[in-house]
Every structure is written in structure tokens, then in C-alpha cells.
């Protein structure tokens, strides 16, 4: 899922300063699951903002709405009219949602209430970790399921660097060495020979390094109705 973290209240209040009527808009998918931008968090954020503005003697009002997915036009269209009364939307969606909203609702100002942190998963309740960078050319077959691009701090493709100690990465004792994990896994599966091959330089053009990415699928495109 896409994991987000709500921005500090002071930062949000500063970006909302020019506006009077605000909609705090939750998003019902990824950021609901990671407990950062769903209906509940939208209500909490609106309440916190209202309290702050009240203390400061401001007349700014915050209401809340939640959209199932801010990254799809059909859900945006369903709520578009209800957003008319607000002069700014504080979106608690990820950056994808904020921009899809902006693209669809060109007259609306949509501001980010979250920092989109990464694509990852919950390791346990309250802990999420990154495990995919979206490089566009998956190598999980090579390592049998552990991504060195994402989980090795140097994105190394040919085994651990000299900074790996006791299973930890040199950048922090809290970060596992991805190559230790890969090594252990390959031993367990009797597949260590996978680490013998010298992996050539990666083609990063399939990642963001190749520029903005767009996927076109002719097989699923709708025929023009005209």
C-alpha cells in the first residue's frame, strides 16, 4: 500500500492561512488502512485545526468529507459539487490523490495534508516499512522475494557491502542488511548459487530516472463513443 504520515499541524495551519472555508478530505483506501488519512484522521485533523483557529481568534471553518479514492475521476466526480462551497481542500490522500484531484478539479485549490512516505506494508500494528521503490523492472526472482533495490541502502545488486555487521546495515542498527536477509533466505532454500552471478548495471530508465512514466494498455482502453 501507499503509506503516508500526516504533516505537523503547524505546517498545515500555515498553508491554510490564506483560506476561510476548508474541507479536510479523507481518502478511503491506502491511507485509511495505514491510519494516516482516512475518515477518522480527517475528523481529528479538522477538530485540531478548529481548536487552533478558535484559540487564535480566527473565523476559519473546517468541515470534513471522505472520498473512497482521490486518485480516480469517478469518485472525485461524485463529490465534486459538494466541494464547491470550500475555498480550499486539505487532502489527506497521498500525492497521487492530491494531483488527481487538482487535474480533475482545475478551479479548486487542493493542498497536501500528508507526506507520502513510501510503498510498504505494516510489519506490526503501528509500524510500517518500505519494501518497493517501483523501479519498473522487478528483480525479486533473483533474490527469491527480498528487494535489494529498496531494502539495501545502497541498492546494491551483487551482495553485501563492507558495512554489514551482525545482520544490520551501516546506516543504522535499526535497519536490517538486505543482503544478510537475502543470503539467509537463499541458504535456507538451497539456492545460494543465485548470488554467484555478477549482476550487470541496472537499467534505471524504467524507473523515474527515465522520466515521468505512463502505461498505455491498448487491450483495456475503451473505444471512443463518438
Amino acid at each position, binding site marked *: 500500500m501507499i503509506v503516508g504520515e500526516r504533516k505537523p499541524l503547524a505546517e498545515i495551519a500555515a498553508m491554510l492561512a490564506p483560506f476561510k472555508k476548508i474541507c479536510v478530505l479523507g481518502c478511503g483506501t491506502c491511507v485509511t488502512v495505514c491510519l494516516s488519512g482516512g475518515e477518522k484522521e480527517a475528523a481529528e485533523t479538522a477538530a485540531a485545526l478548529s481548536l487552533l483557529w478558535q484559540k487564535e481568534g480566527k473565523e476559519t471553518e473546517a468541515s470534513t468529507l471522505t472520498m473512497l479514492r482521490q486518485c480516480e475521476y469517478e469518485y472525485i466526480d461524485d463529490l465534486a459539487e459538494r466541494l464547491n462551497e470550500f475555498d480550499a481542500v486539505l487532502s489527506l490522500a497521498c500525492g497521487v490523490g492530491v494531483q488527481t484531484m487538482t487535474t480533475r478539479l482545475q478551479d479548486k485549490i487542493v493542498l497536501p495534508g500528508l507526506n507520502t512516505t513510501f510503498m510498504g506494508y505494516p510489519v506490526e500494528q503501528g509500524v510500517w516499512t518500505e519494501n518497493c521503490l517501483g523501479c519498473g523492472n522487478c528483480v525479486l526472482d533473483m533474490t527469491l522475494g527480498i528487494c535489494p533495490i529498496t531494502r539495501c541502502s545502497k541498492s546494491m545488486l551483487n551482495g553485501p557491502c563492507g558495512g554489514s555487521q551482525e545482520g544490520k546495515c551501516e546506516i543504522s542498527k535499526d535497519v536490517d542488511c538486505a543482503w544478510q536477509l537475502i543470503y539467509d533466505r537463499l541458504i535456507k532454500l538451497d539456492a545460494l548459487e543465485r548470488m554467484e552471478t555478477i549482476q550487470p*548495471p*541496472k*537499467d*534505471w*530508465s524504467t524507473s523515474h*530516472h*527515465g*522520466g515521468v512514466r505512463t502505461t498505455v494498455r491498448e487491450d483495456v482502453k475503451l473505444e471512443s463513443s463518438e
Partner: protein
Amino acid sequence: MNPASNLQKMLDGGHFAVSGELGPPKSADIETLKHHADEMRNHVDAYNITDNQTAIVRTSSIGVAATLMQMGLEPTVQMTVRDRNRICLQSDLLGAVSFGVRNFLCLQGDHAKFGNEPGSKNVNDLDSMQLLETVKNMRDKGVFVGGEELEHPLPNIFIGSVVNPFADPFEYRPYRLAKKIAAGTQFVQTQCIFDIDRFERWMEKVRALGLHKKVHIIGGVTPIKSIGAARYMQKNVSGMIVPEELITRIKGSENKKQEGLNVCVETIQRLQEIEGVAGVHVMAIAWEEVVPEIVERSGLYPRPKLA
């Protein structure tokens, strides 16, 4: 205070500057480049050394600059942010200064997809504006990007960058120049000028903003060697405008190469008439041997000898 570079003295002294350009080869054999450098040694005030131009792997700008210094010539080291992060950019700057380089040209660099390593990462850790500010802060405040202090102050380095009056949005371009001045650029070189009318319109706005008094503006020119080269620039080089009339003019002439040179000389002569243009940068790509003739015919020879 260390003495200023020749290019800086020329520009600060109000002389119409002339710089040349050398593109390093895709090998470590730079004999041809040295030959070209030597050929124009009396005709240019400094030499831009390109930094892996069009994202093609070549001998490094700083490596070539070392050789030019040994030849008694003045390099302007180009630094793009495409291939190096802030650690490397700052380190390379120090390295180049350590053997006497004083002129630096800070630029973004073409995207790697255009070059011979399209699978590489585009670093872009800093952008070109931030690189300018970085170099300025290293020189003027003695600090690195991260805030740590240099152990010893930098000498009097001369900071340059590039501007493109032929890119869009056209109306915004002078403001981008203003931003670069604020970030620290002391001189700017423009993209090759073929559409001089557009360049003049850009200069009008630059003057209206008073920017020509805050920065040395050096017009970039390239002699058109062939119709093919002109077409290539027109169609394949990003941010370039080659007017169709120009191609028609050269096409219709008996001696096309001579006409290409004529156009270049006329452009330089016109540049000298434009208020606020401080010099010319001649990019005779793969045609370096014509630089002396261009400079002479433009009335810019002999070059002033400054103490």
C-alpha cells in the same frame, strides 16, 4: 585577494569577451582537442570544457582543464548536476580550484536518455540554481551545502551559468535569469543564437529589468557547417530555434560553408551592437578550426592583453 581570471578581467573591464568551446572525446586521447585549443589560443579569452555533453561519456571536463592549464590556457569548467551529487560536485570544484581553475559554468545537463548510457540514474541531487548558490556560498561564506565550513577560504573564482532565450515560457525567461543572478551567477552564456530577433526581444526585457547591469551576458553562437547540421539542431536539439529562413539562405548560396560562416559573423557583429551583451561564446562544434577566422572577421581580433 587572488587575481581574477582572464575572462573575468575582460568582462569586468568592459571588453567584449570571446570564449571558445572544446568538447572532450570519447577516449583518453585528447591530442586533437589540444590541437584545436592551440589553434585558437590567440583568438579566445577562455575555453569552455563541456561536461559529458548530451549525456555522452567523454573525458572529464576537469581532466581536460588540467591539460589546458599546463598549456597556459584558461579553462571554464562546465559542471552539470546530472551525474554528480552535492558531495562530488563540491569535491570536484575544490579539486579544480586546487590546480588553478577559476571559471566555472554551472548547468543542469541534458537528460541521460539522450546519451549513450540511457539506463543510468539521473542524479540531479542539486539543481542548476542550487549549484550556483552552493559555489557562491563556498566562495563567499566559506560553507558547504551541509553547513560545515571549508578549512581554508576559496580564491576569487568566477561563477557562470547558462540561459536559454529560446526556451519556453518565453515571458518567464528573463525572470529565471534574475533568479540565477540572485543565486550567484556573475556571467551567463546563452543557447546558440540563430533567431536573433527573438534574442533581441529577450534582451529588451532583460534591460527593462536592469539585469544587464548585474551580470555579464555572453551570446552563444554556432557556425552552421552544413544543412544537415542545421536540420539536426532544428529538430533534435532541445531548446533550440533554427529559423527556416536561415536554412533557406544557406541552401541557396553557392558556397554553403562560407555562408554558414557569414551568418555567424553577422550574428556576432549584431550582438556587439546590442546594449547589454558583454561578449560572445563561439561553439564551433566539430568545426573548431574556423574560430580564428570568425573572430577576426567579427572585428574582435587581436584580443586585448590584460595585465
